[in-house]
C-alpha cells in the first residue's frame, strides 16, 4: 500500500486534459509568461491554484498549470497533479464542515503580445462547495471568461452534479484524480436589428402580390360599381335640388 502511494506521488500523473478547439498541443511547462516574445502561437502557462482549509482561511497552493493560447480561437489545456493523501483527507474534512473549495488564476491576457506590458496584478477567484466537489468525485467544469481584448476577467467552477446530498464517498480512488473540463469563453456579439432580411422578405411579399392577377386590377376596375353608384346618387340628389335654385335664379 505504501509503495503504491509513493509511486503515485512520484509519477504525478497528468490527469485529464480537455481541449475545446482542437489545436496541436505543444508542451512548454516551464515557460514564464514574460519572456514569450516570439511565440505568438505557442501559448504560455499560468498556475491554477486551489485552497481548501478546515478553518476557511484561504491558503492557495498549486493545483495544476493552465496552458493558454491566444489568437483568434482561444484554447486552453489543464495539466494537473493528483491529490495527495493529505489533501484528500483535508478535502473530506472541509466537505464535512461545509467549507469552500476555492480556486484562483492570475489576471492575464490571452494575447501574448500584451503580456509584456501588463504583468498579472492580482488574482481572479471563485469557489464551489467542497462537499459538492467530493460528491461529484472531483468532476468539475472550469470556465475562464475573457473580455473583448482577451484579458481574463473571471473564472467559474461548477461540479456535475452540483448538489450536496450528504453521500459518503468511501473510495479513496474517487478523490485522486480530477476529472476536469476547462474552456475559455469570449463574449458573444449581440445581434443588431436585422433590417436586411426583413426588407428582403417584404420585397418577396410584394413580388408575390404583384404576380397575383387578382390583386393587379386597377382602382377603377376594382371599385367601378361603387363609383357608379356614387355618381348616380350624386346626380339624383343634385337634380332634386336644382329646381328651387333654378327658380330663385329666375325670379
Amino acid at each position, binding site marked *: 500500500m505504501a509503495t503504491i502511494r509513493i509511486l503515485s506521488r512520484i509519477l504525478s500523473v497528468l490527469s485529464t486534459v480537455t481541449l475545446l478547439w482542437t489545436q496541436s498541443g505543444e508542451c512548454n511547462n516551464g515557460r514564464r509568461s514574460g519572456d514569450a516574445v516570439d511565440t505568438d502561437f505557442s501559448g504560455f502557462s499560468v498556475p491554477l491554484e486551489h485552497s481548501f482549509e478546515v478553518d476557511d482561511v484561504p491558503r492557495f497552493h498549486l493545483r495544476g498549470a493552465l496552458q493558454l493560447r491566444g489568437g483568434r480561437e482561444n484554447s486552453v489545456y489543464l495539466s494537473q497533479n493528483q491529490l495527495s493523501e493529505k489533501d484528500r483527507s483535508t478535502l473530506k474534512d472541509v466537505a464535512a464542515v461545509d467549507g469552500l473549495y476555492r480556486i484562483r488564476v492570475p489576471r492575464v491576457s490571452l494575447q501574448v503580445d500584451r503580456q509584456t506590458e501588463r504583468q498579472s496584478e492580482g488574482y481572479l*477567484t471563485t469557489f464551489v462547495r467542497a462537499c459538492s466537489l467530493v460528491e461529484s468525485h472531483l468532476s468539475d467544469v472550469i470556465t475562464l471568461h475573457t473580455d473583448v481584448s482577451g484579458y481574463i476577467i473571471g473564472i*467559474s467552477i461548477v461540479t456535475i452534479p452540483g448538489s450536496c446530498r450528504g453521500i459518503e464517498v468511501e473510495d479513496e480512488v474517487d478523490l485522486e484524480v480530477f476529472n476536469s473540463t476547462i474552456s475559455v469563453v469570449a463574449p458573444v456579439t449581440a445581434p443588431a*436589428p436585422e433590417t436586411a432580411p426583413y426588407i428582403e422578405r417584404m420585397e418577396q411579399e410584394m413580388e408575390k402580390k404583384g404576380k397575383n392577377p387578382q390583386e393587379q386590377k386597377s382602382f377603377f376596375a376594382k371599385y367601378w360599381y361603387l363609383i357608379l353608384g356614387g355618381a348616380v346618387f350624386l346626380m339624383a340628389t343634385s337634380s332634386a335640388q336644382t329646381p328651387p335654385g333654378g327658380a330663385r335664379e329666375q325670379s
Partner: protein
Amino acid sequence: MAWLVVRLAISVSLLYAASAVFEDQVGKFDWRQQFIGKVRFALFDTHSQASKKLLVATDKNVFASLNSRTGDLFWRHVDKTGPEGHIDALLMYGQDAVVVVGNGRLLRSWETTVGGLKWETVLDTGSFQAAALVGVQDLVKYVAVLKKSAISLHDLSSGSQIWVENLPDSDSVQYQTIYSGGNGVVFVLGVVPNSHIVIVEYKIEDGEIMNKKSVEAVWMSSLESSCAVVSSGILLCVDQITQSLYTLPLQSAEQTEMRQIHLQMLDLEVVSGFRPVLTSTQPNPAQPPLSEFFLQLSPDHHILLQFIDGLIAPLRDFNPSYLAAFATSGERTVAAVMSPKNDTACSINLFSADTGRRHLDTTIIYHMDPNGGKPNRLYVHAFLKKDDSVGYRVMVQTEDLTLTFLQQPGRVVWMREEALADVVTMEMVDLPFTGTQAELEGEFGKKAAIQDGLLPMVLKRLSSQFILLQAWLAHLWKLFYDARKPHSSVKNDVTIDILSRDEFNLQKMMLMVTASGKLFGIDSKSGTILWKQYLENIQPNSVFKLIVQRTTAHFPHPPQCTLLIKNKDTGLGSLYVFNPIFGKKSQISVPALPRPVIQTLLLPVIDQDYAKVLLLIDDQYKVTAFPSTKNVLQQLQDTASSIFFYLVDSSQGKLSGFRLRKDLSTELIWEVVIPTEVQEIVAVKGKRANEHVHSQGRVMGDRSVLYKYLNPNLLAVITESTDTHQERSFVGIFLIDGVTGRIVHEAVQRKARGPVHFVHSENWVVYVYWNSKFRRNEFSVLELFEGAELYNSTVFSSLDRPYAPQVLQQSYIFPAPINTLEATLTEKGITSRHLLVGLPSGNILSLPKMFLDPRRPELVSEQSREENLIPYAPEMPIREEWFINYNQTVSRVRGIYTAPSGLESTCLVVAYGLDIYQTRVFPSKQFDVLKDDYDYILISSVLFGLFFATMISKRLAEVKLLNRAWR
C-alpha cells in the same frame, strides 16, 4: 397569403396590447403636478392693479408665470438642462419680460399674459456679467447686456442691436455691473481686485465712450456683492475689513478717490466673518434709484439708511430681522422686513422707505413650519388700496424650497412645494387598516387565541362584529350626508386620520425623497401632501437610499422606513428612521456609522418586531446590522453561511463577492475584474425583491415547455468602452451570479454607445443604447431559459446550477430617444408585462413586452402562431394610444416607479422629473374588474326576468301535467 397572415397576426397581437384611456376616464385615477424648481428671480407684475401675474425664473431653467391668487401656473417654459438653458437674468418692463439665457447666449423677450415669445436675439459670445434696462427721458427703450469684454444695447421692442462696443482693457479689468439713471448715459463698472475701480461712461445713442476713469480701491475684491448705486448715481460700497462705507459720485470728473465713512461713526458694526450686503432699489429704470438702502450687518440684523447730501443717516434699525425687501407701487416705495416673533412665527411689517416709519395695521404673521426650513428669500408685492394706503402681499421662500404666499393678517393664500421638482428616489407603502379592520385583525392575533378561552373569543367576535356594523352605519350616514351637499365641497379633504387601505389596495402612500433633503408623504389617489419633513444639514451632493424595513402588515407595530443619507465625497452616511404613514421620526436608536458605507443589504431575516434586518457594509468590509438586537444577531449567526453580498468598484472595474461569517466579519469568496483600460462599469442592477413570477416556463407551439432561468441572484452589469470612436465603441452586458461570481452570459454590442437604460426582471434583461454607426436608438432583449427540463424544480440555489442557461437575444430599432425605462409590476405576476418608456417629449409609452421577445420568428410558422409570437420586424412601433399619460406630459422625466396593487390586473405608476404624474396601468386590461359602464340594470333585469319566467312556466307546466293526469 402569407403576408395576409402576417398582418392578421400583427393586428391580433395589437388587439391584445391596445390600452388607452377613454375620454371620460381622464383624471379619474391619474393626476399630474407641475413644478418649477428653486426660484432665483421672482417679479410681480405691477403694470396694473388687478394683475395676478407673478413671473419666476428658477434654477431648473424654467421660466414661468404663476397666478398669484391661486399659485397655479399660467404658463411655463422649460428650457434645456444644464448651463445651456441657464437663466442669467430676468428683467420686466410693462407687459414684457426680458430674459438672458445660457450664459449670455440668447436674449429673449416674452409677452407675459400668454407667455408668447416676442423676439429672440443671439448675442455675441462671451460670458455674461450683467443686464439692465436703460431708459431715456422717463421711457424705457433699451436693454443693455454686459459681457466679459463687450457691452451691447438692444431695442426693447424688437430686440435689434443698437450698438455693441468692446470694453477697454477687458483682459485686466473685471467688468461686473451696469448702471443707468435715465440721463442718456450707461455706466459700466469694473474692478481690478485689490487695486482700483474702472468706470466707463457710454453714450446711449451711439455707444461712444464719454468718459473713462479709474478710482483707487485697494480693499475691493468684487463689485457685485458689496456695492450698490443709490441716489442720483452715487456708488456705495461696503467693506467688512475696514468696517467702512465708501461713496463715489459716478458722474463727477474731478473726484478720483472714494470717500470713506467709518461704520463706527454711525454706531454700526459688521459681525466678524459676515459679508455685509447692500440693497438699493431703482423703481423705474429711467430714473435714478432712491436714496434709501438696506445694509445687512449680520444674518439677522438689517438697517435702513439714507444718503443725503453726501451724508449717510440711519432711518431705522431692524434688530433682529431675517429678511428685508423693497417694493414699489405707483410712486410709493415701501420696505418689508421680516422679524422673529417667537420660536414658531415671524412677523412681517411694512415701513415707508423714505422715512422708515411703520405703516399701521400691516403686520403679516408667518408661521414657520416646524418640519420645514428657515425662510431665506422674501418677495413683496405692494399695491395701492382704494383709500390710497399701501397694501401688500408677500411670497416667502424657505431653505426647503417651499413657496408660501401670504396676505394680511397672515392668511396663507397658497403654497408650493418646489422641492418636489427634484425627486431623487421614492417608494410606495400600503396604507394601514382602519381601526375596525385592525380590530378584526387583532382578534385573530396569535397571542389572543392562546390566552383566551372559548367564551371570551365568542364575545370578542360579537363585539368586533358590532363595531363593524357601527362603522358601516356611520359610512352610510356619511354617504347620505355628502349626497345632500353640493358636489364641489365634498372632495379634497384627505387627511392622515381618515386614510385607510381601500378594498383593492389601490390607494397607497407615496414616499418621495428630494435632492434638497425634504421628505414627502403623498396620497397616491389625490396627490395631496399628507406630511413633509425637512432634514437639515443635508449636503447638496448627497445620495439617498430609501428602504422599507417594516410594511403596514404587522398591525400593532407601526410601519418603518429607513433613509440612508450618504455624502458622495466622503461616503459617510447616516440613517434616518421614520414612520412612512405619519412621517414621524422613530425613537429607535440608530447605529453610528463612523466609516463610509459602501453597500446596504436588506435581508429577509426579521426581528421579533417584524422589521427586516438591514446590513450596512463599510469600507473595511465590516458589517453593521440594524436593528441589532440579540435576537437578530442570533439569527444572523445561524444563517451567516448563506448570506452573500457583492461590491462594485467601478474605478478599478472590480466586482467582488463576500460571504458573512458567524462573527459578522466577511470573507472574500469571488472576484471578477473587468480591465478599466478597455471598458468601465456604468451600472449594476439586480432584480426587484418584491417581484413575483407566476409561470415557470413558456408553453411552446408543440405543447412542450421551455423553462425560464429564474435566478434571483443574477446581476446585470453594463459596461461602456473607453474608446469612443464610432466604429470601435461598444457596450458590454455581463450577467453575473451574485453568489458564486459565475459569469452566466457575456455579450458585446458593437458600435454602440451609452447612455444605456436597462431593466432586469424575471428571466430577461432589456437595454437601450445608442447605435453610433446608424445614429439611432436601439432596444435589445436578452432572455434566459433553462431548456426543456428544469434542473431542480423545487428550489433555486446558485450553488447548485451547474448548467449554463440558454440565452436568446434580439434587437430592434426604437424610433425615439428615451429618458428612462421601467417595467410594470403586479401582485402575482400573472398579468403580462409592459415596459414603461419615459420619452424626452414627456410622454410615457407603455410598450408590451411581447414586442421585445427574442423568440419572434423571422418567418411565420404554425407553431409560432400557436404561441402567439409576433413576426419579427426590426422597427419597434410607437403608437399614440400607448401613451399612458395622453396629454399630461411629464417634463424631463427622470424616473418611473411601479408598484403592484391589490388587483392583479393593475399596476400603479409614478413618473417623476420636473413634474409628477401618477396613474394606473392595466397591461392585460382589467380582466378582474367590471367595466365602468357595466350595465347592471340590464343584467339584473334579465336575471329577474328569467327567474320569474321559470317560476311562471313551472307553474304552468304543473297545471298542464295535472290536467293531463286528469284526462
